[in-house]
């Protein structure tokens, strides 16, 4: 089984901490977080991510610009929105994205 690298972008430090902790409990999922657009771009260019999770507080304009940047560089990645801010939907959302990745292969 190959690892799934996930970039989480959000504006709320405490929620980010929780989301990263939850995602990283999974043995094959590795998440990094970015609280600003610059940090997100920097981390994206430094690592090969499979999934980008757009969390709470990210403005629509930032979201669109980041999405455009990421997809123009890596059209195969999944950029998805995270809803709910915690454990409830997190795993479902990532699993859906992974299923999408596997159907692309």
């Amino acid at each position, binding site marked *: 089984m190959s690892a799934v690298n996930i970039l989480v972008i959000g504006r709320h430090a405490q*929620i980010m901490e929780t989301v990263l902790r939850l995602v990283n*409990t999974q043995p094959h999922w590795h998440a990094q977080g970015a609280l600003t657009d610059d940090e997100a771009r920097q981390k994206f260019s430094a690592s090969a991510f499979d999934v980008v999770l757009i969390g*709470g507080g990210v403005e*629509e304009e930032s979201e669109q610009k980041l999405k455009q940047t990421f997809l123009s560089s890596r059209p195969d990645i999944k950029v998805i929105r995270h809803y*709910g*801010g915690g*454990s409830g939907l997190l*795993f479902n959302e990532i*699993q*859906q994205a992974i299923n999408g990745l596997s159907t692309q292969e």
Partner: protein
Amino acid sequence: MNRKEFLRNSLAAAAVLTVPAAAAPAEEHAEPVGFNHLPSVNTTTMNTVLHKANTRGHANHGWLDSHHTFSFAHYYDPNRIHFGALRVLNDDIVDGGMGFGTHPHDNMEIISIPLEGDLEHKDSMGNTAVIRQNDVQIMSAGTGIYHSEYNKNKDKKVNFLQIWVFPKKRNIEPRYDQITFRPQDRVNKLQQIVSPSHEDDGVWINQDAWFNLGTFTKGFTTSYQLHQKGNGVYAFVIQGDVRVNGQLLNQRDGFGIWGVDGLEISADSDAELLLMEVPMIK
């Protein structure tokens, strides 16, 4: 990773994910059991979807017994993700004095409806409240909040529905509201408990959604007209037996219908029904 592997790997983390350690001793919820993977094949017909009660996801954490109409936490069925903007319908029973420790939410409309017992709520906006039977609570999580929910009573269980609806607008300022409804105002009629208008009855929701509760006596019939074209309605039977557009529904069954202007409802027994009208977003 296939679904079985995913679930197996997830079990060890379930306690951390669903409940902070302060809520219950770790050994009580380290082994969630009874996930329901029954497929939802043959339950979909044109413009309707039927979710029988016994096909719901199930997680028994000891102190928390939860049934999930839609995929939630470690219950994942790609055929049961959402009904339009309705994303979560959890039927939770929490032991006396137990509950969900402080945890975050963002960008979700979260509605809690106690069916039995009392639920204590505290949040990072400074709200402390007890939600009782006949109350409806809504939180717009928006840019982010923290809250906790505990069974107020040590000596009896609390049973409540927790419903999550995708917001119409992301990143709004977090908000909390709670209303106590008169149960006699929903006897053999529909009582609106959630609406998108501040001027209308019910708690306000950041979505074009309307919820109604009804307590019906056997033989009662009524109709429901949708508020907005393109919306669908998800009917959930809290108690008893109800027919919605001819489909017989039993206790805790769910039935989604869309592409219609209205519903015909009849009670085959004394019954309680929750109707959730939501936009049919993809």
